[in-house]
């Protein structure tokens, strides 16, 4: 698409450079820390699964067991938390010393029969080699899932964009399957299973198939598998690849991303700031967690969906539009640092403007085009109106139609279809039918409208887009000046003030030791990020007084 907005490329670069530097400051922190949920994700990838007798997931048992132990620091320094060596180190040490499988070690810990930090250490080199060989198995599995997706898309065909994105949310995975199959028959290209409310605040991932949830269904590995199988069958029936979406957000971002990679999910909600702002999760925890979860999403070929649309549910869209753009820039830069390519960045935004504003449609058009032109390769995710849906379903149907029109005019990629009964109930079969009918009519009827019109230079749409870009650039430069963490403390995003040491989950953030063992970034990151990661780990060793001579044993 030709540029419609006449934006100054220099100014876009200025904003992008600011975002790059903002995330760079945080990345230094990320590289030096791990979290309980990151380590649990690593355990899952190393084939630890299941629950102990009381239903506590084994990855939690193992990490809690390690956390209770300490390791001696360099001479004179205080002992540090044993998790600073990485869960992989303790798991592999016990496997070698006791000649058990990863799962057997975890089960013994779960039964209270094994204390990992008390197992006599074997040779560091052997532990390193075992960790890398187990990790390699997981990497191969994820790579083959990715190849299978590519093969299915090649054989069945990829739907035209905008992809029709439909949510199911019954609480019961088997009922979700029924609804999802019906939605696919009606034309859905993407099925998202909404999570049970408040799962984001659980510091563990529930286990097994679930049939009880509130306003959604628990994200569990078994539920992922059940829906994946159902959608694979449905894809064959309708002759197009239907994508599956779930949520890698909340306190268990990395673990859920690991499950998604293992069960071939295609998209995951994954935002670098959402949990901090909207779920009051500690920012340090979120920054470290988002890094590892995106590393997995990237390698698995999963398209992430970022949550900028949420800014517009708590603030007025007209006033807050620039915060959406600023956050898109930040999400883009964090994603790049995890090795996630632009074609997997489903940057989010929404059609949420007050319908009584004169020229509101023009401003929505400006915002959608702005995202399209600034992130040309990204599969943008466009959310429907919710804030101004009142229960007047007839008016709501019209708002949804306008959302559909902007979407097709501006080449949005992932289109969450608005429901006329939004704010009344979870959609009925007929609500979904009518909403899809609305979408299809408009997308077909106005398919090439965007190609046919040229916006008036200096006109209302261009002016609005320029204003939003100006304000976003100012905001990013302000955030760069004070630092992202301080900016969030001051409430510069979504009007939410979150203290750096507040929120949930800070106790699960652990500084990596000089002997930290975590194989996945080394196996999954593309160059030159792989080298940068190795350098960051080396700097921890240098700071701890371990010279080059010791690198050989620590690796």
């Amino acid at each position: 698409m030709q540029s419609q907005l006449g934006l100054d490329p220099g100014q876009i670069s200025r904003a992008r450079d600011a975002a790059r530097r903002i995330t760079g400051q945080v990345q230094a922190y990320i590289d030096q820390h791990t979290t309980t949920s990151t380590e649990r994700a690593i355990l899952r990838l190393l084939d630890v699964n299941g629950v102990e007798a009381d239903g506590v997931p084994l990855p939690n048992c193992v990490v809690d067991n390690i956390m209770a132990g300490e390791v001696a620091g360099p001479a004179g320094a205080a002992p540090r938390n044993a998790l600073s060596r990485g869960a992989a180190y303790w798991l592999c040490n016990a496997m070698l010393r006791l000649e058990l499988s990863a799962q057997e070690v975890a089960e013994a810990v779960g039964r209270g029969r094994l204390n990992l930090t008390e197992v006599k250490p074997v040779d560091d080199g052997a532990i390193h080699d075992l960790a890398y060989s187990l990790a390699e198995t997981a990497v191969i599995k994820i790579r083959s899932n990715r190849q299978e997706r590519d093969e299915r898309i090649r054989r069945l065909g990829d739907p035209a964009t905008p992809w029709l994105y439909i949510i199911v949310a019954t609480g019961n995975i088997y009922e979700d399957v029924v609804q999802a199959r019906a939605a696919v028959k009606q034309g859905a290209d993407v099925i998202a299973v909404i999570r049970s409310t408040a799962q984001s605040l659980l510091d563990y991932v529930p286990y097994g198939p679930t049939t009880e949830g509130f306003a959604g269904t628990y994200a569990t590995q078994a539920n992922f598998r059940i829906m994946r199988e159902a959608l694979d069958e449905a894809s064959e029936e309708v002759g197009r690849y239907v994508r599956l979406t779930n949520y890698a957000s909340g306190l268990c971002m990395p673990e859920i991303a690991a499950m998604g990679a293992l069960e071939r999910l295609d998209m995951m909600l994954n935002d670098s700031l959402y949990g901090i702002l909207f779920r009051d999760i500690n920012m340090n925890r979120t920054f470290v967690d988002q890094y590892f979860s995106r590393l997995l999403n990237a390698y698995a070929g999963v398209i992430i969906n970022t949550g900028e649309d949420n800014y517009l549910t708590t603030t007025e869209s007209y006033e807050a539009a620039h915060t959406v753009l600023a956050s898109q820039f930040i999400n883009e830069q964090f994603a790049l640092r995890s090795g996630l390519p632009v074609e997997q960045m489903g940057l989010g935004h929404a059609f949420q403007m007050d319908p009584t504003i004169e020229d509101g449609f023009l401003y929505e058009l400006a915002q959608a085009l702005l995202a399209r032109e600034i992130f040309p390769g990204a599969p943008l995710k466009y959310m429907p109106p919710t804030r101004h849906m009142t229960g007047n379903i007839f008016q709501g149907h019209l708002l949804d139609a306008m959302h559909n029109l902007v979407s097709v005019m501006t080449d949005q990629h992932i289109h969450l279809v608005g429901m006329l009964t939004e704010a009344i109930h979870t959609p009925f079969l007929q609500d979904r039918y009518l909403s899809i009918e609305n979408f299809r009519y408009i997308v077909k009827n106005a398919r090439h409208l965007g190609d046919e019109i040229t916006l008036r230079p200096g006109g209302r749409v261009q002016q609005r887009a320029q204003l939003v870009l100006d304000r976003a650039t100012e905001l990013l430069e302000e955030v760069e000046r004070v630092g992202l963490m301080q900016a969030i403390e001051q409430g510069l995003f979504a009007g939410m003030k979150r203290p750096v040491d507040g929120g949930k989950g800070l106790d699960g953030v652990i500084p990596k030791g000089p002997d930290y063992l975590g194989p996945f970034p080394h196996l999954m990151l593309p160059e030159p990020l792989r080298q940068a990661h190795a350098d960051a780990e080396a700097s921890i060793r240098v700071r701890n007084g371990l010279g080059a001579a010791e690198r050989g044993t620590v690796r």
Partner: protein
Amino acid sequence: MKIKPYGDTTGDGKVQVSFTLPLADGPQAVEAARRLALSMGLDNPLVAHHQDMGVGYTFFIIYGSCRHEVDTDDLQASQADFHHLTMDEVTAQARENLGRPVVVVGACTGSDTHTVGLDAIMNRKGFHGHYGLESSPAFVTHNLGSQVPNEVLVARAVEVGADAILVSKVVTQKNIHVTDLTELVDLLEAEGLRDRVVLVCGGPRISHELAVELGYDAGFGPGTVASEVGSFLVQEMIRRRVPGAAVL
């Protein structure tokens, strides 16, 4: 006075209904829909539209004349007892009659994560031009946000010396809202606090009737604006201070 729905002639009783039947489209499905409309009390039902939805279900849009009527004389509107004033009038009323601001604590309790309604009522910004309680000097507000356990809400209410507690409930699956709302009342009663606070709940599925049944002083449904809640709070405070006082 007895009334009926109005189409274009008084007493014509015209209504529109739409629904889905688990039948593939066809003459049998259309007849089934027509019969159902008759059973609903709709005379001369017209099946204006029937559409197969592809999976053995058909969607219908039907018009008909409703047989039933309503006698407005014996209606009791379910609404909290207050005079709806503008926020400025509420401020003036509080200043004259209370002499101090009303301390309000609000939260979305239990698993509820959606604060749009609570924010619209409590926060300065309000919603759609209706400024929230925080905008008036008649109120000191503490918005605790989402997913607040009832215990935390009660503890905070004690801590700040709350005159009123606002609870917002959105999710209603398996009647979770009723469970959470009831638990809060039980908790307040157990702590001997129930009579010391004005207790109000709101949400898309909340009615005043339900709220009263659950032991609340008032309930507010969808479309409520902050000045309504503010009017109620101030007038209820005045009533409690001087029983039987005229509030306007």
